[in-house]
């Protein structure tokens, strides 16, 4: 059974997969930081740390860039 955060995160990652990798990773990060509750982001980190193989590789890269505390003002997530 895939974790909800993994399922939802994979859905996001698939939308940005067409972009160059760095841009795709940044887009996923921005989306997660703009719209996701920090507890869900922490859950994603835990899944990645546990080596959950259900995570999309792009999502795994994005999880590594997630910040603990989002310092930004409003951001927009452009696919």
């Amino acid at each position, binding site marked *: 059974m895939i974790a909800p955060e993994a399922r939802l995160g994979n859905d996001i990652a698939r939308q940005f997969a067409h972009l160059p990798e760095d841009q795709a990773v940044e887009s996923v990060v921005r989306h997660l930081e703009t719209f996701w*509750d920090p507890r869900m982001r922490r859950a994603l980190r835990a899944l990645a740390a546990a080596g959950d193989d259900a995570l999309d590789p792009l999502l795994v890269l994005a999880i590594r860039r997630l910040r603990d505390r989002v310092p930004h003002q409003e951001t927009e997530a452009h*696919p």
Partner: protein
Amino acid sequence: MTLTPEKDYGTPPVATTDRATVTIDGHEVTVPAGTSVLRAALEAGVEIPKLCATDSLNAFGSCRMCLVEIDGAKGVPASCTTPCADGMVVATGTEQVRRLRRQVMELYLSEHPEDCDGCARGNCEMQGLARTVDAAEVRYGRPHTREEVAHPAPIDLSNPYFGFDPAACIVCSRCVRACSDIQGTFALTVEGRGLDSAISAGGTEFLSSECVSCGACVQACPTSALQEKSVVDLGMPTRSVETTCAYCGVGCSFRAEVSGEGDDTRVVRMVPSKSGGANEGHSCVKGRFAYGYAAHRDRQLHPMVRDSIDDEWRVVSWEEAIDKVATGFRALQAKHGVGAIGGISSSRCTNEEVYVVQRLVRAAFGNNNIDTCARVCHSPTGYGLKQTFGTSAGTQDFRSVDQTDVILLIGANPTDAHPVFASRMKRRLREGAQLIVADPRRIDLVRSPHVEAALHLPLQPGSNVAFVNAMAHVIVTEGLHDEAFMRERCEDVDAYLAFIADPGNSPEATAEVTGLDPAQLRAAARLYAGAPSASIYYGLGVTEHSQGSTMVMGMANLAMVTGNIGREGVGVNPLRGQNNVQGSCDMGSFPHEFPGYRHVSMDDVRAVYENLWGRPLDPEPGLRIPNMFDSALAGMFRGLYVQGEDIAQSDPNTQHVAAALRAMDLVVVQDLFLNETARFAHVFLPGTSFLEKDGTFTNAERRINRVRPVFPSKVGMDEWEVTCAIGRAMGYPMHYDSAAQIMDEIAATTPTFAGVSFARLDEHGSMQWPVNDQAPFGTPTMHVGEFVRGKGHLVQTVFVPTTERTNRRFPLILTTGRILTQYNVGAQTRRTSNNLWHPEDVLEIHPSDAEVRGISTGDLVDLASRVGSTTLRALVSERMPPGVVYTTFHHPVTGANVVTTENSDWATNCPEYKVTAVQVGVANARGDEAAEEARAPLESRS
């Protein structure tokens, strides 16, 4: 005939800048050229008698009451059909016209029974007009009773809401014209000739006819031959209250005509307001007639509590109920953390009620776990239009459709879900505009009386983005795009052009996915791009997909590529499902946004609310509804305040929702009825119907409209007062003197609402936001000259197929929708006579799919997906394409959402209701049991 008729000019206004000056009974008046003499006379202060004329209909010239004399002209023309010419001199009260009017009226009265109920009630225009024209005597005799008229016919009482008495009818054709010209259904006609002529609902009784019970004919009838049964039962109303409908996102204005005062107030009828900006005097069967739920015996009028969801409810005082809520929520936060509780606001509540709920969550709960039912319908609209245009709302007013040349209708069924706007759309189509329908199902607008779509594209569910990209591909590769507009108004132009021109986006390359004939799609693209003004209207068939947000952006691309944005007749227009979806989103109901769509991380915005509300606010987004469910099942989310929303019925994957609700320690439901969600609740707080509310709704065109209380709250408190009381009981000071004061706070803190107040709305009528110094009376058309975000953003909308796929086990795709007479989860309409038309949800299935399964219309069938199954009756229908089945979700017993999955829009988590892989088969014995349960009365079910 209504209680306090709005001024009726007899014929519609003429839109032209040319002017004509005429003299009528010595009064000089200048009017738009082409204006009827009848209308010009009233504008000059001269009222000409009329019967068949009304300003909502084009002139007909049949009643011969509005005769006038014109200098230099022969005879006595009907003023309703005579246009003003410059210099014309008109006399309306000469002895000749007075005599003729008296004689005509005598003829009418000679066929009008003296025992006419309408005359007795004072509800017959003809009676008053007879006095006006001095027709005191009838030389030809007059029938004493309705049985004595020349051609007596039985009264038709088949419709649950109105009756038709042919004996009182003068065959003025106002009803026929209202049905055709306003409603666009063409259900009524005049049969026979001369004295034998009679109004007919297509040769059958009203209930069996094509009539959609919009009531336009009843409102148009000058004699009460067509009469609301409620008027017969309750007598004529004595006063009226102007308010706003609580059904769909059209947001029609109504005058609630009532009798009695205070708690004894009874609604006699609802009359749509001509001055209503959204509906301009029209209505549908729900808004006009289906208001009885507000006084239904199922209404729960007292707070109730229980310790466990297996216990019986116990009626308690407001104080005890609110204390249980506050104590329980605080205890859960103490044990499980500040984020362990949250709230859900409702699109059926007012802006003021919704605003207060989000304040409660953000300031008193101390988190951003606030979400709203827009999550499951139009959240992708908010996301997609903000990303591309800069604001989360449609671009036009409804009136804009009057100027359009081509309508691209995607994933919407306006004649069922937004019927008043559909009538307006049909009128424009009859005037010559062209229609493209992109929908798997052959909706009524594909072909109905005097309306036929130029193209119907029955695309496969789940292929919207491939479709919209193919449309843009054709436009760009065939050079039909407006490059000058794109260069001036948009950004990322070159990247987008390169993306969309890729052969992978062509109609031919995407045909396997969309299921569309490439030639048809190319024709649609050429038609849309070639129109002087083309508009897009869409519904949940766009948003409720795993790529709902991408599709919204794809449609925005299409508008920008063709320059169809920023003026009348164009735009991207969401048809919102519920009356206040737009408003509930505007009011900061999303967990990442404050009111006005400003992100919670914006320090300056947060500071405004922190200063005002006196609490530090969380700068991080909170949980969305589906996240709350997942978190509940993980044991971290323990308490929920649900205002006016039935998540156990409306949200997808019912088993998952039920399990999440069961996992919570404290579920608080505030509603009119003990709905499905209340089965999992520990506290029930009675809510108020729209007839008790004081506030505002904001409709799909951003129109902020007043909702005024018709009678006092039946539960003793307004809903916003209850919300504030919860906050105070939790130790957070939260108080407003009135709903108007809440709106004042909204206006003071939300730039797009800066100029809004109850006083201004009461004085000037409804307004479309933004309402501010630059647009003190609102903004009908957005993005004129410049997008809200500056440059429009052309997004590369890559098609990513849904993960929900058919296979051998689940070979069909289920898609869901609405029907005209029911609304959403049916909590309101199922408690009215609307059930007569739609007593149960049915499964529409194509004949070929039915045949291979041995299914006939009326059979009980099992509908199963990978998450659940349910039983309902089949309707074999060629409206469906092969491979796709369809049902509605108006009846809880059907449990359509038992089979829908947790798949959702990637950006907003709006559920993918429109794509569920299913299997259908003839039901076994379980089906009989389900059918028996379906037939049981509502109150006997738990």
